[in-house]
């Protein structure tokens, strides 16, 4: 019985593979865009302009404090009402990048604040511009501090990407929904889907743990 259904599920490998590809593509693209914006967010959040930092903090909390599914629906169903028409993929990328930027922004800001004040002073005293202080002295150290958390965040992002199946994107989760219509074995189908996510995420979890251990050594 088990092998019978297992064979049938695996017979849908093109769908599963397509879903996996979509999940990976969506996550990776959102990760890149989210990281680029997130680092900028982090610099502003840790920076000297208090009002700008607070305004951005409110924006970030807004997205950290609402369900991602709601955010996806807003981007996909409500923005078109305002005249911004997005494909399901574009809507997914927009929502996921935005969420990633918010989380990465707070992580990067925490990293920048963890760099000792003396580092900024040493850079300042040597005549560096604020941009040079950031690029040459502060950011490289902040990145070292937060890399394990960032990698951990990537894992969450990949898992959160499953939510976009709700707007019809054929990602790994949706490929499960499709297969389960012809193979009525929910446990096995979604077990396979879960395994797909785990195969992507597990190496990242291990990497994060290793970086954390190495980071502790480097701080000694």
């Amino acid at each position: 019985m088990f092998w019978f259904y297992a064979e049938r599920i695996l017979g849908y490998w093109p769908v599963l593979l397509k879903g996996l590809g979509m999940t990976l593509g969506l996550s990776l693209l959102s990760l890149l865009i989210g990281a680029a914006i997130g680092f900028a967010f982090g610099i502003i959040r840790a920076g000297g302009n208090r009002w700008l930092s607070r305004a951005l903090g409110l924006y970030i909390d807004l997205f950290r404090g609402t369900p991602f599914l709601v955010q996806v629906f807003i981007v996909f169903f409500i923005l078109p009402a305002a005249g911004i028409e997005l494909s399901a993929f574009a809507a997914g990328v927009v929502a996921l990048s935005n969420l990633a930027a918010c989380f990465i922004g707070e992580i990067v800001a925490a990293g920048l604040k963890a760099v000792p004040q003396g580092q900024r002073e040493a850079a300042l005293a040597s005549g560096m511009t604020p941009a040079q202080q950031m690029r040459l002295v502060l950011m490289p150290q902040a990145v070292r501090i937060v890399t394990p958390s960032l990698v951990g965040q990537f894992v969450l992002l990949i898992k959160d990407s499953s939510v976009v199946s709700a707007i019809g994107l054929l990602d790994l989760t949706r490929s499960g929904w499709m297969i389960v219509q012809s193979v009525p074995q929910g446990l096995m189908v979604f077990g396979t889907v879960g395994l797909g996510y785990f195969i992507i995420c597990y190496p990242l979890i291990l990497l994060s743990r290793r970086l954390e251990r190495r980071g502790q050594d480097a701080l000694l």
Partner: protein
Amino acid sequence: MGKEARMIEFSGVNKWFGPLHVLNDISLTVGKGEVVVVCGPSGSGKSTLIRCVNGLEPFQQGRLVVDGTDLSNRRALRALRMEVGFVFQSFNLYPHKTALENVTLAPIHVRGLNRTEAEARGRALLEKVGLGDKMGNYPHQLSGGQQQRVAIARSLCMQPKVMLFDEPTSALDPEMINEVLDVMVGLAREGMTMMVVTHEMGFARKVADRVIFMDRGAIVETAPPETFFTAPLHARTRDFLGKILHH
């Protein structure tokens, strides 16, 4: 003192931290090539005083001119900082850079030196402070004394006109103090203009042109070392010297 011989000139400088008067009407001129040692009890404002010289610390009143630049001109500040080296109590080396990279970072990016030139200069300076064999080491692989010598080389690599030292040996184990002081003595003898906040009175005796005693934000006494140590004018100076010299 002729105008061109003045390197640092405080006139009536006042600074408050809230209600605390941390610099009380400071007037002081340091000439080119002069070595001035600043001492005083903790909280007397001596660190604040030298931190003003390269604009790390703003002040509310008075005038401060360094190498012809008025510090109230915030736009000229960055150019001035290239000419003023600063050595911190806690070294503040960049932990993600090797000794040589620490030394060459600002010369390359701030002075615009090419890498070869900066590295040649950096190597020579690290040799000079006795760390020729540590160029590729990261700060955490170096002792406190070695880190502080790298920090001095880092400042010198910008070829500054003035060197400021903020308690450069207070964070060091006793056996490492001399290796740092030796470098500073060498620098003083080469004619570098220096302001040094320190309680190392042996160093003051050896190379200082003047010793300044500060208390509660004000300069209480200024004298050449021989007078300062043998015949201090003020009771507070005598009291302070009694505390730091008699054990």
